[in-house]
């Protein structure tokens, strides 16, 4: 005698559609997670750079020689504890920074372009910015200190918004997946109403009936999760090797960094992405079980 056949007929359950829908959800989840990882990394890189650097700006005043003021500022900075090094940007470099706003500047000598000193500081023991600002104002004419505090705040705020947006997208994907599984579970149960009735009448407990269906949702969640993950990785790979010219917006580099970062950094990306099929399977199984038990419990 052969082994028992499945109690709930497999062909009566429309789980192929669920598998496709869940795979798409998992693919979208992979993209959202990838975006989240890249945002986090970019914010770390930006804020790390900004925290270890400040800029001294010296405006051209009519009755002062700017080169003398730059020399005074440099001397003061080098004497300040917490300052690691200073780099004076020449007029051409300063003009280059203005190019995105003003275009190529031909009459460079006629414009009172402010001069910049890039100051590298020790982030572990930074100088007192207030005291440094006061000293610069007193000793150097036209000088001001920019600690990038405003930029840092803006960047952190923007990154925070993007991060929460990604989390919201992930939450919406999870809610949609749960709704799809609930719908599929109801359909399976409705399609097998006669079987369930007979099972109840021969003394089957709700848990027994739920177990007969649950196994299929486990398989569906796992398959869909793996398919979505694979599609997500393939997408990052394709983006990574697509054109990386000025029009790409850095997407190619970002995708490559996501996949091929050093192991110390990339293991977290892979671990987070690998969570997608696991979470998809859990959502599928637990939602199906909860829905089945609720539906079966509503019957006498």
């Amino acid at each position, binding site marked *: 005698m052969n082994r*028992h056949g499945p109690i709930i007929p497999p062909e009566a359950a429309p789980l192929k559609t669920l598998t496709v829908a869940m795979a798409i959800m998992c693919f979208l989840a992979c993209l959202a997670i990838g975006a989240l990882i890249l945002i986090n990394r970019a914010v770390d890189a930006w804020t790390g750079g900004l925290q270890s650097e400040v800029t001294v700006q010296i405006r051209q005043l009519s009755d002062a020689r700017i080169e003398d003021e730059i020399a005074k500022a440099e001397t003061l900075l080098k004497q300040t504890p917490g300052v690691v090094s200073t780099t004076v940007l020449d007029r051409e470099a300063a003009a280059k920074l203005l190019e995105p706003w003003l275009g190529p500047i031909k009459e460079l000598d006629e414009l009172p372009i402010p001069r910049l000193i890039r100051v590298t500081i020790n982030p572990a023991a930074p100088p007192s910015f207030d005291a440094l600002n006061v000293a610069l104002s007193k000793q150097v004419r036209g000088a001001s200190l920019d600690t990038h505090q405003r930029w840092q705040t803006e960047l952190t705020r923007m990154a925070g918004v993007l991060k929460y947006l990604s989390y919201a997208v992930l939450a919406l994907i999870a809610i949609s997946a749960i709704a799809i599984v609930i719908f599929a579970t109801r359909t399976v149960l409705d399609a097998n109403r006669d079987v369930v009735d007979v099972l109840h*009448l*021969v003394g089957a407990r709700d848990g027994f009936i739920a177990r007969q269906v649950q196994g299929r949702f486990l398989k569906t969640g796992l398959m869909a999760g793996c398919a979505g993950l694979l599609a997500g990785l393939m997408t990052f790979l394709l983006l990574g090797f697509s054109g990386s010219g000025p029009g790409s917006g850095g997407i190619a580099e970002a995708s490559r960094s996501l996949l091929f970062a050093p192991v110390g950094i990339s293991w977290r990306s892979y671990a987070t992405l690998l969570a997608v099929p696991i979470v998809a399977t859990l959502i599928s199984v637990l939602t199906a079980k909860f829905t089945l038990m609720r539906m079966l419990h509503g019957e006498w």
Partner: protein
Amino acid sequence: MVRLENVGLRYGQGPEVLRDVSFALRRGDFRFLTGPSGAGKTSLLRLMFLALKPTRGLISLLGKDVATITRSDLPGLRRRIGVVFQEFRLLDHLTTYDNVALPLRVAGQREDNYRADVMELLSWVGLSEQATAYPPVLSGGEKQRAAIARAVITKPELLLADEPTGNVDPALGRRLLRLFMELNRMGTTVFIATHDTQLIDQARMPVLHLERGHIVEAA
């Protein structure tokens, strides 16, 4: 074992299909239920195998008042009752063997422990050749025998059967009656709804007559 007192049943807002039905079955009883089509025989059986709740009256089943039974009590009670449905209710995607073994599988028994019993019962009802066949290819009589085998495989305390010999020839009908009587001798209370007067005559067991939802006589 079974006690009904002034039981009434209506479907939705419709008229009462059962009215003031009262009778009792003691452990080891064998009773027939007859009556014209539409008299309410199937509805009465459905009440007795806990597929329906009465709209009024009292039903006590296997020592439990049906009104106080909780959902979690149902599987345990149903496992003590064997039911032969008029429309068989076999699962088309399971083999005859699997259909007959279903109550044992549902009760969590291991196949090693019941395989021989199922095969012996299939042989008894003349279906050993059809063990691996699926219900859609079985004849009406074969389906009926498979349904009977499924109902009796657990040797239930109470056996309820709705027209169990409606699709079989007289010889097989007698054979199935012998199976029911054998079970009855072993302690199962048997309650059979039937039109088959020959079967009733052969068994010589008490009969309840149902007419328009009401028990009119007990013979």
